[in-house]
């Protein structure tokens, strides 16, 4: 198989990567783009640790191939804080005590971000649904819900 050039927007910056089209997006981001906040936990789209936003919607990057993101806009946790200033969700996760081992955190924050971009004041049920594709084994989710509520100003 030949390598192809793939161009996309990564954290608001245009990038072009020469790679194999069947390389998984999680590998592309971690290995070729130094975005190691994108975690791999299961390789089958079940744990949500590798969640990134593609054109504003959350997807598990372990299920995507590089060829599938041509022209898309990708957001990883590295791109969430702007000019060193943390996103509201990030500060609320810290303040609410929603971070324990931290492995699910990047994906969790991005799923929450996608929710708040579409729905700035979600209900408790909407928060639970939006985060149900991100497994956390440490926190029991409760403080994560609280963090999202805090960020939403609920």
């Amino acid at each position: 198989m030949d390598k192809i050039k793939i161009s996309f927007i990564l954290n608001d910056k245009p990038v072009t990567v020469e790679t194999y089209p069947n390389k998984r997006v999680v590998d592309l981001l971690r290995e070729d783009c130094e975005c190691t906040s994108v975690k791999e936990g299961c390789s089958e789209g079940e744990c949500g640790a590798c969640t990134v936003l593609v054109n504003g919607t959350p997807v598990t990057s372990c299920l995507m191939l590089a060829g599938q993101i041509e022209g898309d806009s990708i957001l990883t946790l590295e791109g969430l804080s702007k000019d060193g200033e943390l996103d509201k969700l990030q500060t609320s996760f810290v303040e609410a005590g929603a971070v324990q081992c931290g492995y699910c955190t990047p994906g969790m924050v991005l799923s929450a971000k996608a929710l708040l971009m579409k729905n700035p004041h979600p209900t408790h049920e909407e928060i639970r649904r939006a985060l149900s594709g991100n497994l956390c084994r440490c926190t029991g989710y409760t403080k994560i819900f609280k963090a999202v509520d805090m960020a939403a100003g609920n």
Partner: protein
Amino acid sequence: MALRDLAVLGKANVKKDAYNKITGEAKFAADLKFDHMLYGGVFRSTVPHATIKRFDASKALALPGVACVLTSKDIPGGNRIGIILKDEPVLVDDKIRRVGDAIAIVAAETQELVEEALELMEVEYDLLEPILSYEDAMREDSAKVHGETNLHMRKHLESGDVDAAFAQCDVIVEGTYTTNMLSHMFIEPDAGVARIEDGVITVYASTQNAHFDRGEVARTMGLPNNKVRVVQVTTGGGFGGKLDISVQCHLALLANATGRPVKMVRSRKESTDVSAKRHPMTMKAKTGATKDGKIQAVEVFMTGDTGAYASYGPAVIVRAVVHCMGPYEVPNVRVDADFVYTNNPMCGAFRGFGVPQVSVCHEGQMNALAKALNMDPIDLRILNAQRPGTVLATGQVLDEAVGFIETLQEAKKKAAEVLDTCKENQGVGVGCMWYGVGNTGLPNPAAAFVEVLPDASVNLMVGCADIGQGSSTVMAAIAAEELGLSYDDIHVTSADTMVTPEGGASSASRQTFISGNATRIACKQAKETLAQTAANFLNVPKEDLIFRNRMVYSSKDPAIKLTYPELMAEMKKWGKLAVGAGAYNPKTTYLDAKTMAGIPYEIYAYGTTIAQVEVDTSTGEVDVQKLISAHDVGQAVDREMVEGQIEGGMVMAQGFAVFEKIEHEKGKIKNPIFSKYLIPTAMDVPEIYPIIVECPGEAGPFGAKGVGEPALIPGIPAITNAVENALGQRFFELPLMPTEVMKKIRG
């Protein structure tokens, strides 16, 4: 309820690791990258019990980009590892004892090449009879997994006169309870990187015990301890599953053989297949009481399967035996326990070391007893509850720090406030637990180094691995409290064997207590010099000095004071350094070999959960709706983190009680991945009400105990008992899968 006036403890601080984790900057093992780094992989057995007839890696070695393939012959040092017993080969030599045993390891230029090389390796086995159950194992003529017997460990505890006591009892209840093999399912699969730096093998690993790893790597490599450095990198959860050696020894071998850095990242499947599991246990119990509800005797016989290797099995059996009567005063106790070796997956430590299993048994018995006596389940528990002065079955007499009854009362109070009146098919259940903090009847010390720097900031070095539970935050708070500084003044370096002293395992809920005490002792030592200098300067006796809120002042006259920066300037002037080294080993004794009498733990934590559930009697589905959980933590070091432990524990308890189970057949795990081994999602979480009870004793740092494992335990029996309450049926086997619940409902 805190008895002490504390400046730092008992509040909520920003976790030391929070900012790095929330920005994505925190580096986990899989995120590490070094120049010229190779990737490593393991060729594993696919059969449970066999000798190797032929192994051939020539095709793999011929693959361009493969750097080396190593087998047991290439191990420079010893080829046996294990936390308690050294019974597991780093690479198989004599025979295969489980599916997943490591036969060979490979290093190659890319992960893809590693996978390709593994596919090219060939093995032929001579199969041996697989031992797959307790009954198999105990048959006299069965094949032996290790040595001459499959009996891994047998324990007996006896106090009082059990037979005579049962003869006097008005009510006796019996039950046989079964719990299943479970998987930790930490979200980060095991990973690490090893490299050689200045003649030292450095292993960066996802681990719960860097210092243990160091010893294992050193022995495998035939090197002195100080030629091996293990650094615990940011670790994505453990729950006991990262106490055993995972990638560390293999990485060291590969880095040593190639002279290049090597990284290994396990797949989810590999991680689940070979990391230790929770011991499946069967517990047959008999409990006798007088007609007014006072328990007179408990008898338990339990069996457990530790699988192919001991791992933490010896700790699980001993702890299960000591805890199996529950947090109650029981004058006459007899416990027998047998753990066996089989060719099943290895079982070891998993949050609670056997206490979650026995809690299902003792709380099932309490539920049955309450029913038989027609007593309120909470009243029955309060009547029998351990309290200050209680004599345990081991002969130990409890001190003042026993907050069990308070947890029952607080949970009951909350239940009256938040639980609904039960409709049909709804039920409420109570579950309780006690948990001895630290290792059982064995020394388990930890140490800390501290230095107060010229600007009054502090370097604290502890061996204790922070795996996300927040131990570094706890140590910082304890140091700040003791030194009279603020939390933000303390920088913690943890679990790096070249920098920090031994901390022991982040397990057994022991670090707040043991590393916490070590930290406090180290700080006291540093404070001694500080106090002497301050006393000289202020011209007051040093015993009168109070260190608090970055000030040092006289307890007699607060106006006589100096600030910390002033004190540090004074220290500099006199050429004094504020350093301290502290070590703490809990005051326990070895347990008697025959009766298990002795002092197994210095302190105990207590907890009560009340659960409300609703059962769909047409489908057997159990909906866990509300969980109230009250925990005596002695002294909360950080309230928010204690709540976080309780909430996380409760959701794990829900998984344990309702749907988690490792299924294995012929020694092979059938559901090693998240799509098949279900853990609770955000949609499953019930309403959780954490309650912190504080009964501080003298033993812990500022009275603190531990909460990591206690947080899980009482939720499991509470949910089980709530389902019993909803359906009027007893359940003896977990998890309460819809299929099983339906069978019960339909008779």
